[in-house]
């Protein structure tokens, strides 16, 4: 299992691996929003939690179809399915690799981009905390969506449509955490909901995704 994680991370940082794609997209979105909305600090502060979370979510979405499609095309997925490690573990490791190459860099870069959005200083710690807690769910849900569409050529559109509704709860509670944190209100409830969503997806979706892959490989 560790071998698979190491391989995926190696592939991600080598040429054409797509590492940094999500991060660059996040950067572009957040840099462009103040140009579009205008430089008034108050407006930016008000929309900062939402924009930062939407930007992070879309950045995650961008690299989802790579999770299984590349392995499917070169035959690795067939071989992994016949390998001694369970397919559920393969899915989980793929999601972890996706998070390490997408979710984690987004989380670490978010405070810098919060500055561009004039986020209230009280919100920074909650921004990082909510992204750290919520992006694993985005990667796991994304891996499930990628598993469902793995056999399809150019399945990216279908994948986005399948995954976006599933991302909505994470987005709502994530942005709510940051918004409340920035306003100095209690954040326990949205944080707990976010943690609950992440734990539930991590517990259930590897099995659903593995089942979807088994069907798609037939």
């Amino acid at each position, binding site marked *: 299992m560790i*071998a698979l994680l190491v*391989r995926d991370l190696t592939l991600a940082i080598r040429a054409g691996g797509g590492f940094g794609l999500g991060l660059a997209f996040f950067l572009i979105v957040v840099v462009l929003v103040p140009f579009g909305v205008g430089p008034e600090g108050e407006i930016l502060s008000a929309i900062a939690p939402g924009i930062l979370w939407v930007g992070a979510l879309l950045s995650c979405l961008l690299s989802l179809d790579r999770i299984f499609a590349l392995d499917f095309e*070169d*035959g*690795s997925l067939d071989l992994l*399915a*016949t390998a001694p490690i369970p397919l559920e573990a393969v899915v989980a490791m793929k999601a972890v690799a996706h998070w390490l190459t997408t979710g984690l860099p987004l989380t670490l870069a978010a405070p810098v981009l919060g500055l561009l959005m004039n986020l209230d200083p009280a919100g920074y710690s909650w921004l990082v905390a909510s992204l750290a807690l919520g992006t694993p769910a985005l990667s796991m849900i994304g891996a499930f969506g990628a598993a469902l569409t793995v056999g399809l050529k150019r399945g990216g559109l279908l994948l986005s449509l399948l995954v976006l509704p599933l991302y909505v709860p994470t987005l709502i509670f994530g942005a709510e955490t940051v918004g409340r944190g920035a306003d100095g209100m209690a954040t326990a409830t949205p944080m707990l909901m976010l943690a609950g969503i992440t734990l539930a997806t991590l517990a259930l979706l590897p099995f659903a995704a593995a089942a979807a892959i088994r069907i*798609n*490989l*037939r």
Partner: protein
Amino acid sequence: MELAVSDLACARGGVPVLEGVNFTLAGGEALLLRGPNGIGKTTLLRTLAGLQPALAGSVSVPPEAMAYAAHADGLKATLSVAENLRFWARIFGTSGIDAALEGFNLVELADRQAHNLSAGQKRRLGLARLLVTGRPIWVLDEPTVSLDLASVALFGDAVRRHLDGGGAALIATHIDLGFTARELDVTAFRAAPRRLDAFDEAFA
């Protein structure tokens, strides 16, 4: 370890292609599957390897005993030859890729990235993976595609060594592999064309 397949039926895309497949394969033995294109050799091999469920029948050996190699080699273009092999060795829990590199004459290419290999070299690397799986039954689908004569001979040697070590090999091929083995023409098991009522169309 003997592989016994009895009354196996398998389908592709919701259409049964083979039924009543019966054969046995003992350790140290190879069996060549013959038959025209589209008859269902690949489907049969995928069913045996556990990639798709059988419609009926039984296989005496679980898929965990089989090493499957198909048309696609499962190589990562940006990893070197040695890295590709080492990855599969770790996945299959075996150690040492040297024998596999030597067996398929890849020692000099070990540090080269896979996307710089020729088609035949990639194929050799894909076949070298079989040696690091450590599994007793090889299930091979057209293993000699794009191999030159020397490489086909290397492959033949590797299969012979595997058989001498008590392993077995089930090979779908159209060409002469340079060693004598039993042949099985799967045309005899062709299924009557009909659609399956219970097949889930959504996943066709």
